[in-house]
């Protein structure tokens, strides 16, 4: 597997007298991987994300994205096309008066000719399920629709990597579910994903989880292995998803031993089948 993102020994701070915000931070991401980034507020997650498309540059260390060195100013637009970023606040991501124009804006900037442009708008709007909203004004959309429209604008540029920085934290449950569905679909289509989140249920969708503290990765495991150690999260006052907490409690009583299951529905089925197995 060849890595699509390589962060090598990054040091970064916003001001000189500040402590390191990224402190010898290294990470490799394989193509097609879905990485969840967890951590306390202020641990440097957003700072790390901004390194990946050159919004910030490290004081030392190197970032390589899809084969390009992010420090190479001549290649910065290649990097930004390869690695698209979606932010937390759905209201701050639109420049044009309609959804369609907003998607077109990014394509024009990338020098895509008109016919190709229309074809891509059609394709991406169907992909994220906003084909009926193309002529709508962005501020009239619901939160979930806004985030999907923002995603459409990015995937129209055919990126290899998408970075999501707490994109569901301002959404209601329906909007959140819609955006998570879109994310699953993109990952199935082969896009590599970096997903910063505080929501452990969302983290369960990833392949791999990294946990940041004070500018460092203090844990980096497959999602399966990460959640086999609930005490790691509990000692940091992170509440486990309900069905995991219940499995932990049952295991203490010798019921449903073995690995913790990471699928609520699969586990509930096993639980419901228990009495008949007795």
């Amino acid at each position, binding site marked *: 597997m060849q890595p699509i993102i390589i962060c090598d020994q990054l040091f970064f701070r916003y001001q000189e007298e500040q402590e390191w915000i990224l402190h010898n931070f290294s990470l490799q991401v394989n193509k097609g991987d879905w990485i969840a980034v967890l951590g306390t507020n202020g641990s440097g997650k957003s700072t790390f994300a901004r390194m990946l498309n050159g919004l910030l540059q490290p004081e030392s260390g190197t970032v390589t994205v899809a084969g390009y060195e992010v420090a190479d100013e001549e290649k910065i637009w290649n990097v930004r096309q390869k690695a698209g970023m979606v932010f937390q606040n759905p209201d701050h991501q639109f420049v044009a008066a309609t959804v369609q124009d907003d998607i077109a804006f990014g394509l024009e900037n990338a020098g895509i000719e008109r016919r190709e442009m229309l074809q891509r708008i059609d394709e991406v709007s169907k992909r994220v399920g906003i084909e009926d909203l193309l002529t709508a004004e962005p501020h009239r959309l619901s939160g979930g629709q806004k985030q999907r429209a923002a995603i459409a604008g990015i995937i129209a540029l055919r990126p290899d990597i998408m970075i999501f920085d707490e994109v569901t934290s*301002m*959404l209601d449950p*329906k909007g959140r579910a819609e955006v998570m569905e879109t994310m699953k679909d993109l990952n199935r289509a082969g896009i590599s994903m970096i997903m910063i989140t505080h929501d452990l249920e969302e983290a369960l969708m990833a392949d791999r989880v990294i946990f940041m503290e004070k500018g460092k990765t203090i844990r980096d495991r497959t999602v399966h292995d990460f959640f086999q150690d609930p005490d790691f999260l509990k000692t940091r006052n992170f509440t486990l998803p309900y069905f995991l907490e219940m499995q*932990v409690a049952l295991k203490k009583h010798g*019921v449903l031993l073995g690995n913790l299951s990471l699928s609520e529905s699969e586990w509930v089925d096993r639980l419901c089948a228990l*009495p008949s197995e007795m």
Partner: protein
Amino acid sequence: MRITFRDVSYTYMIGSPFEKKALDAVNLTLSSQTFTGVVGSTGSGKSTLMQLINGLLLPTTGQVQNGDFILHRKSKRKYVKQVRRQVGMVFQYPEHQLFGSTVEEDMLFGPKHLGLDIEKSRQRFPDLLELVGLGEEILPYSPFSLSGGQMRRVAIAGVLATHPKVLILDEPAAGLDPAGHRALLDLLRDWHDQHGLTTVLVTHDMEDAARYADEIVVMDEGKPVISGAPTDVFRQADQLAGLGLDVPASVRVSRAMQAAGWEVADTLLEPEALAGVVIDQLSTVRKEG
């Protein structure tokens, strides 16, 4: 303080092409000293409802009674200000409302605005900061040197410094990490209990609504459509799903267990407690079998 909405409607931008009826003939009572969770999809009217409680908005028709005060379309500014003195409001992302050059200046804004005794308020700052998990040494700092979570807590300490009788919280924990989220809501619930407040928490998070609220009001298209104790409200899982809302995981799991023949009550159980139910019933099955 008891809060009663009588036939309250609210319409934004009346007479313009963007006219929007955000609340439609709302009748609702929030009993004194209860902690009420308000849930509903985006645009259902939650924030409008909250702003009517403290008179930031006045009803287009109907009236809002807040203790002995009654607000209606023609209420006078001076009168509204008296109501506002009773009501503390923490908006979404309160850190965006910090603008003083020091933390102290920001915390004094509320008390000054409401004409409270400045010296007395100032004396309470160290305790309030400690309560929200910060130290008084940050009083001279610029709010912008603080982290997002710290700024949030300063903003909340500033609201508590006005000693409101009613506390309105519009998604106060959104965007905080899980530890900070829990700590902040625990603190607000404790403050509510200790000071006998009437508190309203607007949230998208059904786990929070279940954990912290005594009563839940579900809003849809400008009207309360379901209300009651959390256990009763979350029993209506299908209606909630129809409104784009979830139920807490405890409800999801217990319902699946009920369907498979387990005897589980309709109460919102902590995971350890529901595990306890499983253990008890398994041992009964074993004895009988």
